[in-house]
């Protein structure tokens, strides 16, 4: 905050990095409230998100999608065939409809970030969620 050049001229960069950090914090918070059959190993097609997770001591990450068990997905085109059966958490609302295997989403709607976890899909995929995620559980896509 001390750097005036950042403060005045390059606020955009600060804004972007701070915001990405918080985004990953939200994602980390969600993932820490779920449990699957094995320890969580994350892959994401968003390199910034993956890089942030790499610095986290809570989660393991991988650079290969097929080695991960949780996928954080930005674009459908980045999801290769052999990863389609993994647990997928998406970053856009539309992907929840387009990717039948996706169990939850963090997305922007009406100017604010939203979280949604689809109950029927976590049940099918044997994902356990803690009660802290109860407010975000939905039976179906809105």
């Amino acid at each position, binding site marked *: 905050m*001390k750097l005036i*050049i950042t403060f005045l*001229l390059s606020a955009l960069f600060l804004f972007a990095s701070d915001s990405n950090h918080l985004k990953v914090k939200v994602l980390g918070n969600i993932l820490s409230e779920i449990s699957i059959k094995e320890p969580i190993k994350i892959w994401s097609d968003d390199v910034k998100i993956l890089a942030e997770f790499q610095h986290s001591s809570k989660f393991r990450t991988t650079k290969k999608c097929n080695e991960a068990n949780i996928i954080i997905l930005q674009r459908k085109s980045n999801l290769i065939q052999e990863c389609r059966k993994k647990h997928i958490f998406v970053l856009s609302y539309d992907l929840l409809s387009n990717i039948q295997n996706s169990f939850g989403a963090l997305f922007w*709607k009406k*100017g604010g970030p939203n*979280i949604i976890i689809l109950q029927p899909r976590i049940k099918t995929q044997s994902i356990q969620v803690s009660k802290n995620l109860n407010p975000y559980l939905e039976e179906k896509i809105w």
Partner: protein
Amino acid sequence: MKKILLLILFVPLLFSQELLLDSLLNEYQDSESLYKKTKKESAGFLLVYSREDLERMQAYSLKDVLKTIRLYTLQMHSIGVSRILNVGQGKSALPPIKLYIDDFEITSVAQGNALDMYGEMDIYFVDHIEIYQGGNSIAFGNSPGSMVIRLYSKDPSRENSSSTQITFDSKSSGDFRIIDAGSADEYDYLFYADAAKTNYKKPTRNKQELSRDASRLQAHFKISQDDNFEIAIDTISTKTDIFNGMGTAPLGDDSLRRYTYINAIKYFQGDIKLSLAASTERKKFFNSDANGIQLTTDLQGTPTGNDLDIDIHSNTYKITLDKKIIDGNHDFLIGAEFQQNRLKVKTYKGTNVTPVIGPKKLDIYMFYLEELYNINKNNLLAFSAKVDYYKDSFSKSSTEYAYRLGYISLINEVWTTKLFAISRYTYPNALQTTFAPPVYNVNPELESSTTKMLAGELEYNDNTHRVVFGYAYKVIDDALSFDKVTKKYINSPDTIYFNRVYIRGEHHFNFNNKAIIEVYKGYKDDYYSPGAGALVQLFNKVGKFDIYNELVYRDSYILVNPLTNEDIKMDAGYDYTLAISYPVNKKLKVKLKGENLLNKASKTIIDTAGEIKIPAIERRGLITMEYTF
């Protein structure tokens, strides 16, 4: 009584509890707030109304924001249009306030004041509002203004939804708004439309009701592709009953104000931006009066006629080219703009006065540059200069200059200071030089006025508390003043001196709860508007309820009765607003709002007899339902 009030206002703070993930989402949302990306701290003394603020204030119209701005007072004009006056407004013309919607400046030729056209606009498509006071940046282009109001439309990539909102109020008014925004492939789009009918209390004079009821249609469309282009189209059309009109017995006629613009921006490699814009404007005014239209400058004289019919059209064309260079500690902007204003008086009937029409075409060539230089990591120098060449169709030309020197320093972790020295000009508008209603004469020879100003701001901010103290000293030469003898605007031979101070305190209890208190005072000899004012805003959340309390205070002031020349003391105003909203579910939100609940908001006089006193914001209750698809 005071204890009860304090209890009502602060109890919500005690019950505010957040889930961890919810708090994190709030923090994430705040970090992504669009104003953090668009605001320009070096461009002046900044006031920001974030999207969150606007929503919790239930600011439906721009005037809901205008009435809260320090150093200004919102008032009602005798023909049913609201206007905004500077602290201690003298006999000089209205302050040159610039209004932007995204990158487009609303250039009103016929009105000479963008707020006349857009002051009561609906802001459902607006994300946030930035207000720059105290010698705003030349980099904003066009002729410099005393205050710049920038409206930023919602970002489609964060909307991804369609919403509709309907409002009814206690005066049987209705307002219907719809917005659809999102992304399709690589393109972002936003479409918004609004239809409103607003009714007002009708004061009576000689058993005759004076109506300023208004209907408005508004639409905004935007399509863009990141780092490539953006096209915006906007239109607003307002029909207003004539209210007091220009005589003593108006027969229920109306006026029409319509404005449409298109603005296209193309971004090139190397931080080059090219903008092309065109706007068209129409003002139609028809006033029939049983006793005849009376010249306000000749109130004892004979009425000029029974009907007044005026229809003015104007067009503006603009082309702007900007280039930005960021190199080490330098941030350099250079740009040029060509603007052409055309005005056409299509109809001017009903008076025994032959109107004098001034130059109908004005070309403006502008060149500007701005350098922001980082002396070191805590100190910044800002310098900007602007040269504008004006040439009208009467072959009158002039070259105008504006300069600005700024120094911004982060004194330590919590203290910041901003200092600006400004020399700028105000070019007369078409209502002063080219075309005037039959109440005064035009003056094509009118020259621009010059303003020199020294202004500073000192800020303390520890993230929980924020205190801002601001001061400005202003000297105006050749002020554009109305001369009662010649019945036209002239360059005042007197130099005007002006001081003003303000102090603003904010306390952020947490993300959902904050309190703002602001006080200002202007020091000047003539007062035609309040010379001092204050604002209290309390933003609270109790469970799912959003509660907003607002008190706008404006000091008493003196007006002169145009008939008798006697002073009329206008009482101090206390405009109290309470707004409560509740999300029924993820799709439906219900909102309740009471405006001017004490019925003591600052008033002005709208008739020549000085008998009818009207507030800009009337007491009314509103209920709104918002549905998101």
